[in-house]
Every structure is written in structure tokens, then in C-alpha cells.
């Protein structure tokens, strides 16, 4: 049997297996820590930093930090919530996120976290970047306006040989995620759907069948994000 570690989150006594990340251990202990770039089954990258927690006074990403015996973790303190909110707000102003006509609305993690953290409007000025849509692929549409560069698609959607169908293009603030024309040529409908589902926002859209899920039946229509995990309700300020 693997070693059991004891630790606390916001004073609640929790247990974890050795090697488990804070995020996974929190989930096992029914405590919700928000994430955007993380996806169970994929190697964590700690890139979006929405899962920031305070460990013994230091900010660390919960998705990449393993639990250590006796850790005291803060998940819901005011400063952590403010950092998370500011990250979400930065993402919202950095792209062009128009929920009213986005097909992912109601299924979008970014929108759901913004609702959960009660963000009526970002504190930062909108950047309104001039971005394109990549529409030449027969099955998928890549809307660069909405991409938050979380790399879930790069890590999660691969062809039979294990090669990523999505890849970075350009550098610095001009970086975008592109669909590899050659590798995606034989993409199946299922793969296209998987790619759309893996994207936490509406940056990957399966072509032609839009808005098929009625309002009221979308993922976050009934319960806020994290409700499936959460037993101890987080305060959201």
C-alpha cells in the first residue's frame, strides 16, 4: 500500500497518496480547486495558474505540486481568490470572448469560472486583438479570438502514431495554435468532437452542427463548475 500523507486545506484535514498532486488530492477529498489547462489523464503543465494555492505561505500551482506530509494549504483565502480572479480577468480581456454567440457558452470552463467567481466585468481594459479564424480544415474551425493557449489540445489530441494534431505557431505574444494540415487530413468525426470537448473555451469548434445542445441542458446550466467535486463549498467572495 502506498504511503498516506496527512495535510490540510483551509484547515480541513485531508489525506493523500504519496506522489499525488495537491489538485488530485483535493479532488479526492472533495475540495474544488479551479483549473483551466489541467485535464485528468494529461500531464499537468501549470500554465494557466488558475489553480494557484498558498502552501506554507508560498504561491504554488496545485496541478503540478505534489502533496508533502503536514502541508498547510490555503485554497480560499482572499488573496488567492483575488489572484485567480485577476488571471481570469486577464484572459477575458486578452482575447475576444463574446459569450452571446459563442457555441461553447454554457459548456465553457472560462465562462463557468468567471460566473463562479462572480466576475461581472474585468478590471483591466479590453485589448480587442485583431485575430483570425482558421477555417480551412474540413472538420474543425480554430477561432484564435478565443484561444487561451492552455495547450490541452496539443497534449490531448494525437494521431495514431502519437503525433500532436495541434501545434504552436509563431512566438511571443503572437503565438497561436494551429491545426496541422497534413496530420488532420484523416481526422474522424469522433476526433473532431473530442478536440472540441477538450478545449476549455470555444477556440476549437466542430464544423456545421452548431448550438445543437439546447439551453438548459449544457454542462454548466444546472450547477456551477466544481459542484460535482465540491462537498465543502468554497466561498467565492
Amino acid at each position: 500500500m502506498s504511503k498516506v500523507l496527512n495535510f490540510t486545506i483551509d484547515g480541513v484535514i485531508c489525506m493523500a497518496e504519496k506522489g499525488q498532486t495537491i489538485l488530485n488530492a483535493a479532488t479526492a477529498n472533495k475540495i474544488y480547486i479551479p483549473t483551466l489547462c489541467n485535464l485528468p489523464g494529461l500531464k499537468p503543465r501549470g500554465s494557466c495558474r488558475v489553480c494557484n494555492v498558498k502552501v506554507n505561505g508560498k504561491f504554488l500551482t496545485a496541478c503540478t505540486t505534489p502533496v508533502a506530509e503536514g502541508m498547510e494549504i490555503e485554497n480560499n483565502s482572499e488573496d488567492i481568490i483575488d489572484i485567480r480572479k485577476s488571471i481570469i480577468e486577464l484572459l477575458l480581456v486578452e482575447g475576444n470572448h463574446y459569450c452571446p454567440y459563442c457555441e461553447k457558452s454554457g459548456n465553457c470552463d472560462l465562462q463557468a469560472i468567471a460566473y463562479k467567481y462572480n466576475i461581472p466585468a474585468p478590471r483591466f481594459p479590453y485589448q480587442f486583438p485583431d485575430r483570425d479564424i482558421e477555417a480551412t480544415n474540413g472538420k474543425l474551425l480554430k477561432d484564435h479570438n478565443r484561444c487561451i493557449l492552455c495547450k490541452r489540445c496539443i497534449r490531448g489530441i494525437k494521431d495514431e502514431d502519437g503525433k500532436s494534431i495541434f501545434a504552436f505557431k509563431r512566438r511571443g505574444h503572437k503565438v497561436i495554435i494551429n491545426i496541422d494540415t497534413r496530420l488532420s487530413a484523416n481526422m474522424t468525426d469522433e476526433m473532431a468532437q473530442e478536440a472540441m470537448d477538450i478545449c476549455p473555451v470555444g477556440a476549437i469548434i466542430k464544423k456545421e452542427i452548431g448550438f445543437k445542445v439546447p439551453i438548459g441542458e449544457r454542462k454548466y446550466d444546472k450547477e456551477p463548475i466544481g459542484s460535482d467535486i465540491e462537498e465543502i463549498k468554497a466561498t467565492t467572495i
Partner: protein
Amino acid sequence: MGQKLTIEPVTRVEGHGKVTIHLDDENQVVQTRLHIVEFRGFERFIQGRPYWEAPVLVQRLCGICPVSHHLAAAKALDVIVGVGPDNISPTAEKMRRLMHYGQFFQSHSLHFFHLVSPDLLFGIDADPAKRNVIEVAREFKDLAVQGVMMRKFGQEIIEATAGKKIHGTGAIPGGINKSLSIEEKMKFLIGKDPLNVDQMITWAQGALDLFKDYHKKNKNLIDNFAKFPSSHLSLVRKDGALDIYHGVIRAVDTEGNKILHDIDYQDYLDYIAEEVKSWSYMKFPYLRSLGNKEGWYTVGPLARLNTCDFIPTPLAQKEFEIFRAYTNGKPNNMSMHMHWARLIETLHAAEMIKELLDDPDILEGELVRKGNKTIEGVGLIEAPRGTLFHHYRINKDDQIEMANLIVSTTNNNTPMNRAVELVAKSYMNGQEKITEGMLNAVETAIRAYDPCLSCATHALGKMPLEITLYNSNDEVIDIKRSE
């Protein structure tokens, strides 16, 4: 040298419009123009977006009748996805129709109770402080409650079919994304008083009676105010019945002769053109066969009842017969009869809702169909305010390349200008001051068309207007504003 008079309605959502009236040296009106800032921006910023987004995106044009835009776009896309509006599944068509009749019912009810009833109950000449919906609520409480409930009923129908009361997602290219649940159906059919369809039918009849009673007592005003000859255009069902969801385009001249013979709206560009004028952001549509001088036409409730041969529901048909007999079967050109026509349509919408709720297809069946994609499609629908055209062309990557929208208010551009001109002439000639009476009259004339520019003022039943009077040297000599 002449004088110029400006009336400026300031609205929140759709931009603003203004009326300019030019006077000559004898203070006679020589020219009147109604300027409305329209929504042309949508046609540009939808370019590049994937086509299936259009029904959800373009409905943001309007907060009062978004369903019309939603459905007109979906109908155009039915053509693009190779299904065509005649071929969507029965469930999809009936759900869309239910949504549309729900919206007609709520929009027409709102217009009548909030905007028109203060005029009917207190008189058009009453003090504006009295002539508003708040005073109606105070003095005619039951009627005000009816108005609120009728709107609510229509909105709940929209919610049940589109997912939300405003800006839903129900219609998708080639179909619909849901059917009605049995609970929803029963709620609307036999739900708790007062929100069931039979009550709605009764109240719609009551509103009609209220209008007819007012008409009897105020014949001169209702029959002669802003009356002018016009052609009329609308969709009609292929057999000539009133149909606000689908059909062919018919237009009649002022004598009732057909000037557009039930044409397929995919070919609308062969028959209808739009003229641009330097002084207005809004285009002026006209029938090509008659040219830009004579080819203008009216759309909306009055036009629909002037073009159709009958109404396919019994109670509304009876009212239609009375309405048509009033003008001996000839087209009705009395602007204030627009309210009469609107109320007959309200009754028809309620009857149609009942018929659709009773239809088993609404509860289950195929939702979406697919066909061979084409690159271009036109969707036409009768919005509460009149015929609405949506036309899209896509590129090989499924992105919208071209969009052309002709909204109801644009179709009514010339008739509204005529109505305002008539009113201005009768009130202004020989005067160089703007009177309260004129302000009210211009407002009443514009309101008969229920144009989009009045959306923002629905809540209080007022249309803020600003009139600026210019002398022959373009100098301002008077400003008047309605509060």
C-alpha cells in the same frame, strides 16, 4: 429662403433618428425627412464567422423581436445546408412556428398595452403626464395586468422553444435543437389561470373590442390621421392565407391589384432593389418593376391583412372579414388601422399557438435534417413589424462571405417618411413655432409603424423627440423636446 425643422428621437439601443422639416419663406412645409440610424454594422461584422453562428449572432440586432432575426437567419441557412425551408422536419417547423407565434403575441401585446392603450384610454390629446402606461396601470389595473400577462405568456412560449426568453438558440440550420415537453405543453394549454392559451384568446378579443369601441367614438381621427395611398407587401402562404413564418412574396397596389405575384423569395433581388440616399443611413427598398419613385411599399400588420386572402384561424378570420368589409375589400391605407390589424394578428397568434400545442409533432420527431450544401440562401419571415429579409453567402470553408439584411423598419422607410410629412404639413404650414400638438402627432404617426427606433421607449410608452426649427439660413430658431 426656407426654414429647416429638426425632430430628433434619441434612443438607447438602435442609435437615433430625427425628423427634419424644411419650410419656405411663407413657412410652408416643402420637404420632410425621417432619418434613422440603422444596424448596417451587423452585415459587416458577421463576415468571416461560421455560418451556423448567424441565427444566434444576428438576433442581437434587437431585444424586442430577436426571434424574427433568429428564424429568418435559420431559414436562410436551411437553404445553405441543402434542406430548404419547405423540407425541414414537421417537428422543427412546428417548434419554430410556435416560437414565432409566441413572439408575435408578446411583441404585439407589448405594443398595444404599453404604447397604444394610453392613447385609446385617455385620448391622443391628453396631457403626456397622463397619457402613459403608468397612468394606465393606476386607472385601469385589470387591463394593465392583462398586458403584462399576455407578454409573459408569449415570452414563456419563446423560452420553451428557444431555451431563453430573449436571445435563445432553438433554431439551427436544417432544424431545431429541441421538442416541447409534455409538461410545457400542458402548462400552456390548461395551465393555471391566467397563463393558459384560452385566457390569452379571450384577452386578445378584449383588446380588439377596446380598439373597435374607440374607433366607433373617434372615427375621424382613426380613419383620417396620416392616411395616404400605398402599396403593400408581405409573405403569404401559397394558397393566399396569412402566414407569418413561410410562403411567397405578394405585393398589391393601393387598389388591390397584384404587383408582385406570389414570387419565390430566393429570387427577391430580381424584384426588389434598395436605394441609398445621402441624407439617411437607412436604405429605401422599392419594387424594380415600378422604379424607385413609385415602387415603395408598406410592410407590417396592415400590409399583411391587405395582401392575404384569408386568415386560417376562425376567430381571427371573422375579425378579418369585418376589417376588409370596412374598405369594401380594397386595401386599407389608414395608418391608424395598423393598430386594428395588429390586434387581429394578436388573436390569430393565440389561436395558432393553441393549434400547435395540440399537434403531436411538437412533442417528438426528427429535429434536424441535412442535405447537399449550397453557398447561398435567403430567409424571409414576417417579423411583428413587417417583412424581414436575411440573405447569406458562404465561402468553401463555411465562413459567411456576404450578408444582406433588410429589416422591417427599412422596408417601411418611405411610408414612415410619408406619414411624418403628412402630419408636418397639416400642423406646421404657416407656423414658425413647434407646438406640443405637433410633437404628439409626429410621435403618433411614427408609432403606428412600431419602428425599431421605438424599442427603447416601450417601457414608458413614450417616444422622446427633439425638434429643432431652422430658418431659411439654417439657423436654429426653436428647439422643442418631448420628455
